[in-house]
């Protein structure tokens, strides 16, 4: 895979089993070269909005958040402390992180929740259990698409 097709995955998921499954499948597909997993929303928010990585000393292998251009965020909704809605909202509200594609990955398929996520600005909503082939394709394409497409400056999805 070329660099252009690789993305860094940020997975925010509280269930270890689910997280492991996603990780294994994504690894197998070779789509990502960096994989970050947060167990709850608070950790994710700290990562995105907290002090810079140089100060907190993020573990090696974890892409620094300055390199946001190749991120894809996989977000679960049901999490303790800070849930997925809040994370989604914060991500899309902040112009720096608003351009990061967010794929909501969750068990619930309630139309109201789906609508709410799209209103908050998620890019894709996928219900578990996931068909990983199609899923991986979607991830790849989304990341690639956002890499390649030139968006006018100031657009909320444009790179800063």
């Amino acid at each position, binding site marked *: 895979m070329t660099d252009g097709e690789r993305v860094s995955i940020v997975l925010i998921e509280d269930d270890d089993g*689910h997280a492991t499954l996603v990780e294994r499948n994504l690894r197998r597909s070779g789509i990502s070269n960096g994989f970050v997993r947060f167990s709850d929303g608070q950790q994710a928010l700290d990562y995105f909005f907290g002090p810079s990585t140089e100060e907190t000393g993020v573990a090696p292998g974890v892409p620094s958040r300055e390199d946001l251009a190749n991120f894809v965020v996989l977000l679960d909704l049901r999490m303790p402390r800070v849930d997925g809605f809040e994370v989604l909202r914060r991500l899309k509200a902040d112009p720096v992180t608003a351009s990061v594609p967010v794929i909501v990955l969750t068990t*619930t398929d309630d139309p109201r929740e789906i609508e709410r996520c799209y209103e908050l600005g998620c890019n894709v909503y996928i219900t578990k*259990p996931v068909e990983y082939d199609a899923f991986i394709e979607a991830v790849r394409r989304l990341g690639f698409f956002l890499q390649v497409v030139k968006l006018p400056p100031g657009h909320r999805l444009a790179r800063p």
Partner: protein
Amino acid sequence: MRAKHIQRKHPKNVPTRARYAMKLFAKGLLLIAIPSAIELALLGVVFDTQEAAARAARSAQNSKQILWQASSVVDPLLREAARVRTGIALEDPSFIDRHAVWTEFADRIALLSRMVADNPAQLARVDHMRAAAYAWRAQAGDVADALRAGRSIAWTRVAGDAIPPEIETVRSDLAEFIDEETRLDALRTASLSMTRAHQQYALIFAVVGSMLIWGVTAVVFARNVGVRLAALRDNAQRLADGVKLAPALSGDDEIAALDAVLHQTSARLDRAVREQAALKLQLEARAADLGGANENLRQETQDTEMFIYSVSHDLRSPLVNLQGFSKELQISCDDLQVQIDSAGLPADEHRGMAELLDGEMKESLQFLRQAVARAAAIIDALLRISRAGRVEFRWQRVNMGRVVERVLAAARALPDHARIDVGNLPPAWGDPSALEQIFGSLIDNAVRHLDPARPGRIEIGALDGEGTDASGAQGVDAHARTYYVRDNGVGIPAAYLPKLFHAFQRLHGGDSGAQGVGLALARRIAERHGGRMWVESAQGAGSTFFVTLPGQPLRLLSALSTA
């Protein structure tokens, strides 16, 4: 007045109706009779006085006549006396014999005698006068005889110069008579004028009395009957208007009776109104109870559905892991197999490992994955059926032909020689995807239950006009359409028919496609549309599923859809 006096004499609660009738009639009679009687009395008095006056007048006139007659009665006597003297003087008896004179005198005195027949004193005088006159007549006769005989009448000469004493008697009697009669006459005239005065007074009294009587009658009538009638009418009007009545009228005639009836009616009306209000309260209470019970039921159903929903939803998360990791196990096993195969192990160990992998592990994994798939399907079905009551329908006119087309396009492959015929399907009113679900379930069911022994035929159509279901329940509404899906498959045994539409009661085991909720869901959807679903089936011959759907929107349906 007298009428009222009579009233108070009688007790209030006199029983018979005849008595009441007499009362008002009696009052009326009295009101007419008494004044009439008094009028009659007055009239009588007037006539009386008139009569008296007339009598007095007659009497007075009578006296005058007597006086006149009396004055004339003595004249013939005097003339006869003169003739007798002349006869004596001339000694001619022809002067004396005058029968006409005495006839005339007799008549006059008889008349006078008749005139004073009622007065004995006067009558006595008249008789005395007559007697004296006749005595003198006898004397004159004697003289005539003597003259005729030629005797000497010297003694008569002397007697003949003056008026004979009998005539003098007559004259004096007559004078007395006339005096007396004059006195009577004066009396009678006085009496006459007095009577006339009486008559006048009587007339005036009668007129004034009449006016008084009628005035009093009018007042009595007004007070006793008029006012009470007005009160009665007023009460009747109040009754009609539903206003409280005035206090009951006194007395016990028909007016009072009518008034009592009015009061009774008013009391009954009040009672009826109160009863109605009580009944209405009861009805409202019952309606409220019913509403409450309904609400409870609805709430419970909703709670149950929510419970099922949340449980099955929560089960999804472990299910993801189950499915995912069973697949992972499979993958790892395959990898292991590959590694073992390429490891170049000694044949025995290789065989042992391969056996282990291919045999028990593979079998275990297979069962595991099947079970996981089954659990996933059940949880999915639970979710679907618990969500069926909550999904909002988008009501519109639905082209059923297209719905069935879509279903058939997505349906499972038909076995060989099987055919599906679609008849003319009139449009229905409902939610297209929900209706698709119904037909999807039905068609899927039909296909699944085809008899492999004969070529399958599935018919989808609609009934004409009014359909009635097998149980003969109420006829279908004219606006509703009844569709059917008929197959000639294996049919359903009669024993299972009641449970057919219950969730999870699967008749034929094996294939876990619908998980036994398809028919239950389909029926729930049909009911939420305001329709019905039922089945007719003969074991070994086939089944026909009927579903009724509304053709036009009914206001009732929107209430049902939120149930």
